[in-house]
């Protein structure tokens, strides 16, 4: 952090995503995108999350293609362990039958877990490499090169996941209960009388919306906070080494737990959506 004037500047730099947008008919980056509004892409978030997702799926796909029912190789046993773990959770929590729910849970669990695990990479490593490349390849000031590699510390990622789940909740509710059943569920609960329809509607819609909101904000909050603390620890000189270690060890628990919670809640919400009253 030696090259930064203030701690404030250092922290702000490390918490800023690399942006890309179209400005003046061409492609612009970072500070030039300040006015681009909604049509801005966080290229670092998308890049690292897609890279992680492709690696995960390619690995699982290759193992699945070579999977034998005989004695499995160690890699296959490892993959099967994860698949069975997810499958057990789906079977114990999800009552309906769906071909989508288990692969969905597997994708969420492993993808989110891997994205979370990038939080354990030393906070300065990738910004420093990106700064060097920017400085020597493009002649930029390294302070103007931004790179935040943990995709789950970007609220866009967690909201995208939650919106995906939310769409599925609506889809399954409509498919299992029909439009009438779903409308009835929104208006006739918890107080089953026509007088309370507006009251019920408000409560049920809040309940419905709270699900994706809590899903995404929980994950985002946890990861953003832990990333922020990693960055704060990085500002205090050599004392950071034991602190970093302690905080990282703590996150060996937190990161998988967040991925697991996201997966479990997805399963539970979809199970509720499939339930008939």
């Amino acid at each position, binding site marked *: 952090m030696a090259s930064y004037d203030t701690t404030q500047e250092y922290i702000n730099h490390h918490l800023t995503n690399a942006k890309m947008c179209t400005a003046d008919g061409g492609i612009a980056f970072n500070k030039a995108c300040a006015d681009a*509004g909604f049509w801005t892409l966080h290229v670092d978030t998308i890049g690292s999350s897609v890279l992680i997702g492709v690696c995960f799926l390619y690995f699982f796909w290759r193992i699945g293609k070579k999977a034998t029912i005989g004695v*499995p190789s160690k890699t296959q046993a490892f993959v099967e362990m994860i698949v069975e773990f997810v*499958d057990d959770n789906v079977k114990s929590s999800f009552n309906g039958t769906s071909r*989508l729910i288990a692969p969905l849970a597997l994708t969420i669990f492993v993808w989110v877990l891997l994205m979370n695990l990038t939080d354990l990479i030393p906070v300065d490593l990738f910004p420093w490499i990106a700064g060097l490349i920017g400085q020597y390849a493009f002649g930029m000031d390294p302070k103007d090169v931004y790179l935040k590699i943990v995709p789950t510390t970007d*609220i*866009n*990622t967690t909201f*995208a996941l939650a919106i995906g789940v939310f769409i599925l909740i609506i889809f399954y509710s409509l498919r299992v209960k029909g439009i009438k059943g779903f409308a009835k569920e929104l208006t006739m609960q918890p107080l089953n009388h026509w007088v309370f329809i507006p009251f019920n509607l408000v409560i049920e819609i809040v309940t419905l919306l709270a699900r994706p909101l809590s899903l995404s904000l929980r994950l985002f909050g946890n990861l953003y906070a832990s990333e922020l603390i990693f960055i704060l620890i990085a500002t205090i000189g050599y004392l950071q080494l034991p602190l970093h270690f302690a905080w990282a060890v703590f996150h060996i628990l937190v990161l998988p737990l967040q991925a697991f919670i996201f997966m479990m809640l997805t399963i539970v919400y979809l199970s509720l959506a499939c339930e008939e009253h």
Partner: protein
Amino acid sequence: MNFNATLIGQLIAFTVFVAFCMKYVWPPLIGAIEERQKKIADGLAASDKATKDLELAKSSATDQVREAKVQASQIIDQAKKRANQLVEEETQKGHAEREKIIAQGYAEVEAEKNRVKEDLRKQVGLLAIAGAQRILAREIDADAQKDIVAKLVQEL
């Protein structure tokens, strides 16, 4: 919190990943797991059945061995009995044979004795005649006493 087009990008990525996982990743893996589980269950059931079969075979084998032992002792008893019988019979036959041979021997010896006796008589007669001849040669012609000699021989 700045929401932007990244949200849409991530949503597309998420959808594509889930679709890929559902189509190409999940089915072969869970298929392999479930098939293996079935195979293991079948194997365990087969081994249970084999153990049961083995027990049955063991008990039936014990029964057969016991039966065989009983039969064997019966056969041995019969054989002993028969052997005793045979020995008895042979002994009796042997005795009879011995008696017969001895009797034959006696008869032969008797016949020989008689023949020898006859020979001896003849020779004693001839000897007596020779003696008498020598005595009589001094006095009488042998021819004159021939009838007497013959008479003597007959009397012997």
